[in-house]
């Protein structure tokens, strides 16, 4: 009963005069509300900023602002991580050229590389660095030019950019395990840089042992050999280091040819071909018996 009477009473009250504030009062209050926003620094920034509505403090806007803050943090963190990852290799790369350009460290390369080849024969490619079954002395040891002084070793290094390139590949001797690809690169670099290979001692010996060959080659080739002697000396050192299968300093051309033939008999066709190619570069005018030429 009371509920119905109360409802009727409320309806009667709702029908009473609905007094309203005057327009002037409305304007005054609204003007104050707007001025309060303009004078508030925080509100002013949020109002003027294009994204200010996103940072309004209704519950939904707060939620979005929090999400944006988290997203911005993630983006900044990811950017920093990527930047650091990019900078680390650059920093490592800065240290490597320092070793490349230094004379003394570069001069040590042949010895280190030689030692590396001696130290890890198990890592050698069977095709390229197969141990000599003939019992010959290891090439790296033979390839060391004891008659060369440190200055002589250094000079070819400086004069030969090809050797420097090969040396760079050979520098990380301790890193051969980490960069096994360096060995093929060394081989390729050495082969690419070779024009007329011959270690100084080998060339000297060959010139001594085969004066006829030099003479037979003619003045042009002889002068070419002479011209190529110094710049190619370093190249020959590099080649001998990277491929102990090539001619040794004290090996005569005939012996070399014989060894090449032996390689073919052993089925080492690739080694034989490489050695013969190298032989031809060193002794382009050396007469090769037809049989050996065909087999090579």
């Amino acid at each position, binding site marked *: 009963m*009371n509920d119905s*009477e*109360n409802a009727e*009473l*409320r309806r*009667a*009250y*709702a*029908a*009473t*005069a*609905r*007094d*309203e*504030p*005057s*327009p*002037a*009062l*409305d*304007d*005054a*209050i*609204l003007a*104050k*509300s*707007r001025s*309060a*926003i303009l004078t*508030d620094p*925080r*509100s*002013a*920034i*949020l*109002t003027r900023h294009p994204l*200010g*509505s996103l*940072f*309004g*403090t*209704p*519950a*939904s*806007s*707060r939620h979005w602002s929090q999400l944006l803050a988290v997203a911005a943090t993630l983006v900044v963190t990811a950017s920093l991580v990527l930047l650091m990852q990019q900078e680390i290799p650059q920093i490592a790369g800065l240290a490597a050229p320092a070793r490349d350009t230094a004379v003394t460290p570069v001069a040590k390369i042949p010895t280190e590389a030689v030692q590396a080849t001696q130290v890890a024969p198990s890592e050698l490619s069977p095709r390229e660095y197969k141990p000599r079954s003939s019992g010959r002395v290891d090439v790296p040891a033979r390839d060391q030019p004891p008659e060369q002084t440190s200055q002589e070793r250094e000079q070819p290094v400086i004069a030969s950019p090809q050797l420097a390139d090969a040396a760079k590949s050979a520098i990380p001797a301790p890193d051969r395990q980490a960069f096994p690809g360096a060995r093929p690169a060394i081989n390729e670099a050495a082969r690419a840089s070779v024009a007329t290979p011959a270690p100084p001692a080998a060339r000297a010996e060959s010139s001594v042992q085969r004066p006829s060959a030099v003479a037979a080659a003619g003045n042009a080739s002889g002068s070419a050999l002479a011209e190529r002697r110094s710049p190619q000396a370093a190249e020959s050192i590099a080649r001998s280091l990277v491929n102990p299968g090539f001619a040794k300093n004290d090996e005569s051309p005939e012996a070399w040819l014989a060894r090449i033939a032996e390689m073919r008999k052993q089925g080492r066709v690739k080694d034989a071909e490489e050695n013969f190619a190298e032989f031809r570069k060193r002794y382009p005018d050396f007469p090769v018996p037809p049989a050996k030429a065909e087999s090579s």
Partner: protein
Amino acid sequence: MPAVTPSSARLKRVNHAPIADEDLVLRYAGGDAAAFEHLYSRHRGGLYRFITRQCGDRGAAEELFQDVWSRVIETRARYRVEARFATWLYTLAHHRLIDWYRKSSRVVWVDFGREEEGIDTENAVEFAAGRSAQPEVRAESREIAMKLLVLLEQLPPQQREVFLLHEEGGLSIEEIAAATVTPTETAKSRLRYALAKLRRGLQDLT
């Protein structure tokens, strides 16, 4: 809510149902001036009538009305969504009225305390005569409405306040208790007494 007068045309009647009062306050606190306009358009009439029919003086009512909204503007950043905005608004109005009661020379302030049932005039605020003689009320209302307003004026202030908070502000009993800083049962009994007196008054008049 009725449409706003033409001079405040920018306060158009808009269906704000999707946007709660609390969100509007927070938006305004964040710098959205338009949010305040929406909020003001929703509660301007009810608050105005609440204040007017409590203090009985139109001039004073407008001043109090403006003071309450100024308080809302100044404390917007401190608003917390723990209570409805209407509760917060009418709580401000209640305290502003109390302050006005204490300062006005026309009112004898008596401490509001707990009321015994049926004894609702012991701790009453007495109003000066003249409040009931509002010419615009008698000129504009129908007979019953006029009688009702008269009866409303004759209610004890606490009961009238509770009635107006319920009818004009749309507050629940609990919200009324929170706004008036009174126990819930006290607010409930005051509303019950107010409604009973108004019904009796209308029955006596008819």
